[in-house]
């Protein structure tokens, strides 16, 4: 083992010091259409296209990495990647730990999806992904919260009856409900949570945040961001 560590250390130390600005983009890869692993095994989705465009405008070389949602913030502050671009809504709690760029999607509603239309979302058992704004909302809404590590598991919980309904972003849930052949239906009123989705960066990384901020602003100004949102989330998605 010692030998392996030593050789890693030597390998790493002797590697060249050509430090091109490679920005590692951290995402979850399990939240279509925001981000997902496509059938070729690569990161794909709205945020892939957006991120590549932002990197081009900011003149950065970017590389995509996936990380589990649960440890996505600790790994950012520890420096394993440089941004979180994973459908992460801007909230005050998260803002205390990391910094956000300006939002690149407007605050869009979260909706409830259930197996039957007569579910009462204020008293029932509601599934949500762990450490999301939705799980925070369910916990304070009076309903019983059950948390799951991945978005997919929250849906499975509703289908097999473990939970009455699931609360998640409308962009994620609407295609699921539409393609379920009536098995899943949208119930209750939409709730507006968070301040839109932004790019998460380390608090000490002001330079990078400013670069992405400028790039997002330029995409907002020339309308390309709205085009991209409509492309991935449908014609009736909220735009800027």
């Amino acid at each position, binding site marked *: 083992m010692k030998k392996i560590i030593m050789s890693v250390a030597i390998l790493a130390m002797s590697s060249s010091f050509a430090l091109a600005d*490679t920005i590692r983009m951290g995402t979850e890869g399990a939240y279509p259409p925001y981000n997902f692993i496509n059938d070729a095994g690569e990161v794909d989705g709205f945020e892939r296209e957006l991120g590549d465009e932002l990197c081009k405008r900011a003149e950065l070389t970017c590389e995509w990495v996936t990380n589990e949602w649960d440890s996505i913030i600790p790994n950012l502050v520890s420096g394993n990647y440089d941004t979180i671009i994973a459908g992460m809504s801007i909230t005050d709690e998260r803002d205390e730990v990391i910094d956000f760029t300006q939002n690149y999607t407007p605050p869009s509603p979260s909706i409830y999806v259930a197996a039957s239309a007569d579910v009462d979302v204020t008293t029932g058992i509601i599934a949500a992904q762990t450490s999301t704004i939705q799980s925070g909302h369910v916990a304070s809404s009076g309903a019983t919260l059950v948390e799951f590590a991945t978005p997919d598991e929250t849906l499975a919980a509703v289908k097999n009856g473990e939970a009455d309904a699931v609360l998640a972003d409308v962009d994620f849930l609407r295609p699921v409900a539409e393609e379920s052949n009536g098995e899943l239906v949208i119930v209750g009123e939409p709730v507006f949570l968070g301040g839109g989705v932004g790019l998460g960066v380390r608090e000490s990384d002001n330079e990078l945040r400013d670069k992405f901020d400028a790039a997002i602003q330029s995409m907002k100004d020339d309308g390309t961001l709205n085009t991209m949102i409509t492309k991935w989330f449908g014609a009736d998605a909220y735009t800027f």
Partner: protein
Amino acid sequence: MFSFCAEPDILEGLQWVTCYLTTGKHFAFYASFGTVMLLLAVTAPVALLFGFGGATAARSTIAPLRWFGKGYTAIVRGIPDIAFFMFFVIALDQAFEFVRHKVLCPEWTDPIRQGNDFVVCSAAKLPLSSSPQWMHETYGFMLAVLTFAIVFGAFAANVLYGGMGAVPRGQLETAEAYGMSRRQTFWRILVPQMWIYALPGLSNLWMILIKATPLLFLLGVEDIVYWARELGGSKTQVFSYPHPDWRLYYFLGLLVFYLSLTKVSEIVLSNLTDKLSKGQATMGGESQRKAVAS
């Protein structure tokens, strides 16, 4: 992969299945079986080595070494695996980067800890941000091996410590009577005989290690359980091959894989037990003697 896979939407039946099972994502899934086997193949001997070191240290006559051995087993065995895997690895990674930062960037004056952030100069990053993704993955894999080895080494240390204690005192006394030194007694009498006593415990550890490999994903290594969950989850029209929740079938596949792995392990371990029982003053050794005599 095949030419007829170019347009997945119009495929049907067997062609669809063929194309579906040969996507890049599925190949990543198949490759991850190799990752798991490699992890087992590397971790098991390293953990055994850590365990042997820990057990030897715990028996040492030098007090600080003994404290180290006992402390290692007590601390690591007491910490929940998941906590260890979540925090120890990040801490280990930061420790490496901290050392490299001190060596490579002495002129750097900013603090390394800035609030929540851990900031080292870009030359000290491990691996460098500019290095290709496979280097990051290899590094992650090696951190995983090291962490697994430390955790399972602590359990192995306790098992081996017990195994060493179980070797009949008469054997060691005889060695001393023949004038062997402490070191000779240890290597020639104690170590060859302790394995039969340690084997049941070690085989347990091996089985647990096989089942613990899904913890790999906590370390950012994409293992078979990650891919099974990812591939099996229901897929909307955004994907080329939309399908409902198929996780059951993927997990059934994993079940077969894990059961065959444990079955093969059981066969190998029982052969090993037979071999090690030879001439031992144990039930196994006794029945072997009787079988030869009759």
